[in-house]
């Protein structure tokens, strides 16, 4: 027998309470995340007639409808920028978030045949379904640039902070997505709850109206919704709707989304052991 290198030893034990997150395994399987994202995108563009056009059509059509009903008919204020670009800038992170959230919540149940047959860190599934939305986001972002040129929005330094708010969108989507993905394995009701939740959530986020419409005394409560911070951040970064960013409020939103993410990670890990037996 050849001289053998020491092999990694894995201990298989009954889980006790909250176990470590096992991020090492996730790192080992990082290529799988990439392949799953690649699969989602590839399949979607192969199966749909309009392919990439959907990524543009969806936010643009929504923008048109919102502009007609909220901007024109209801005359909702828009912080001094043209209403279409005002709402489109908000729709950009919002649609990324709502799609990511719903895909992540479904990810475990949709891939149950994999879960019951092969080991891999289960975190790969919600993670990759969230990241897959980035392609749509990138396409929709190009449209925003077009709109900004059309409305002659001046360039500003704050635009460079956009990746930070994008990251915050993903963190929030992952945090909430992890909770619901795990819950969906336990209770299939979650699948029915998700569209309703997404709709409800959209109205407590400043998408069709500005955050400045919310009375001052409710502001704190309002920013407990991490997506409020994200959307206001996007508008501040791209359009300069408010001269100074309410940094305390944004930090509140960031704090909430981090709490959701960390608790989501632990809950997911805690439930992970049951997935193969239950899905």
């Amino acid at each position, binding site marked *: 027998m050849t001289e053998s290198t020491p092999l990694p030893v894995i201990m298989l034990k009954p889980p006790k309470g909250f176990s470590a997150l096992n991020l090492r395994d996730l790192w080992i*399987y990082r290529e799988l995340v990439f392949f799953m994202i690649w699969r989602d995108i590839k399949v979607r563009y192969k199966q749909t007639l309009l392919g990439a056009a959907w990524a543009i059509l969806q936010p643009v059509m929504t923008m048109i409808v919102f502009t007609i009903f909220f901007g024109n008919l209801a005359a909702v204020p828009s912080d001094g920028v043209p209403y279409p670009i005002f709402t489109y800038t908000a729709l950009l992170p919002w649609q990324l978030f709502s799609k990511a959230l719903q895909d992540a919540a479904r990810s475990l149940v949709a891939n149950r045949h994999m879960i019951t047959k092969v080991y891999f860190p289960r975190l790969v599934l919600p993670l990759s379904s969230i990241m897959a939305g980035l392609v749509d986001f990138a396409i929709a972002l190009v449209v925003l640039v077009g709109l900004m040129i059309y409305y002659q929005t001046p360039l500003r330094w704050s635009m460079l902070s956009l990746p930070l708010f994008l990251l915050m969108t993903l963190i929030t989507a992952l945090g909430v997505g992890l909770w619901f993905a795990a819950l969906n394995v336990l209770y*299939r009701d979650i699948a029915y709850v998700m569209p309703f939740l997404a709709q409800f959530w959209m109205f407590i986020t400043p998408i069709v109206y500005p955050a400045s419409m919310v009375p001052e005394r409710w502001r704190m409560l309002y920013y407990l919704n991490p997506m409020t911070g994200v959307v206001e951040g996007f508008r501040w970064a791209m359009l300069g709707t408010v001269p100074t960013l309410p940094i305390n409020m944004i930090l509140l939103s960031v704090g909430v989304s981090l709490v959701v993410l960390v608790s989501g990670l632990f809950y997911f890990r805690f439930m992970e052991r049951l997935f193969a037996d239950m899905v």
Partner: protein
Amino acid sequence: MAEISIRAHKLGKQYRLGSQVLAYQTLRESLPQWFQRKKNGHEGEVLWALRDVSFEIERGSVIGIIGRNGAGKSTLLKILSRVTEPSEGYAEIHGRVGALLEVGTGFHPELTGRENIYLNGAILGMHRSDIDRKLDEIIDFSEVEKFIDTPIKRYSSGMQMRLAFSVAAHLEPEILVVDEVLAVGDADFQRKCLGKMQDVSTEGRTVLFVSHNMSAILRLTQEAIVLNHGNIVKRAPTPEAVDFYLAEGFAEEGQRLWCDEEIPPSAAPFRPIAMRVQNEGRSFTESVRSTHPIVVELEYELTSPISGLRVGIYLMNSRGEYIFASFDTDDPQFFAQYATRDPGRYISRCLVPADWLNEGKYILGMNASAFRVKRYFQDEHALVFHVDGAGAPGKHWVESRVGPLRPKLDWRILKQ
């Protein structure tokens, strides 16, 4: 001293019946349950799929795992391949585990063969660079070169299987765990796969192989573990273990009854009840006379109608080689008459002719399926019986005859 590859200590896996763990639920169902549990502390019935299983496996050995349906084989493999976690005890795994509990996991019909190789490889834990390096070899092994850039939804099921197995066969883990995946595919490709697995074992890797195919187990493994009701009942060199499995402790006096835990949920709406062997008018005979016809009876229940159902038997010798298979609707007229079987309790009975089987030990298997639609239930080793050759043709010479049959043929001697 040889290196240890797997060490299991008092491994156990518990499932809770009729409660949370076996199936998902809706909130409406589970809310009242929470209250009930608080009230009477009732936790639901507990099933130990595996219990007190301890063993050590040395590096480089090839071990077969055999046992009936529901004996805990799949649970053991699932624990060792980390799909599920044990409820008690522990296992130590030295090295990376490649698990083949199913071939083609994660295959997507819209993707091409080549794309699926990458995806499936990644799911099985291969790195992109490994796949790049072995791509040609994988494609070559699969015999589907011509269609490698076609979406696999256009593949036949055989082609998909071949592609899937090729990916799996090129995994290079230190420990390979294989479940019944060779049961499908054509005979030539099966042989090729078995050959590939033999190569794997000669490269110093540890292989755990679960199969109902005794001849594959005999050919591939040196040692085997027999599981029964979640326990290890025997560990021995393969021929001995197979012999033990086929004979000892499993013969149930000519009658085999299936209890609920041996019937997978996928069998529904088919529910097997019993298989019986009768001879000379006596029921439940473990030993039958070859000079009398043998009656084989299958009792089962349908909870809802099934179309195209066929219920039948396999007959196997003690070396695990098939002698024949026969179904109750083999007769086209019968098949038309029973195109759809209504719910109810049934008995399908057949007659194995007298003066036909050689003396020795035989294994009867059961299968209930709708051809190309669904296999409802299968138990390859349902029942063991002995054939007593007293009075059989040629018995006046004290010698054993070769082959599984000892037919009474219509001989004439003509003097020219």
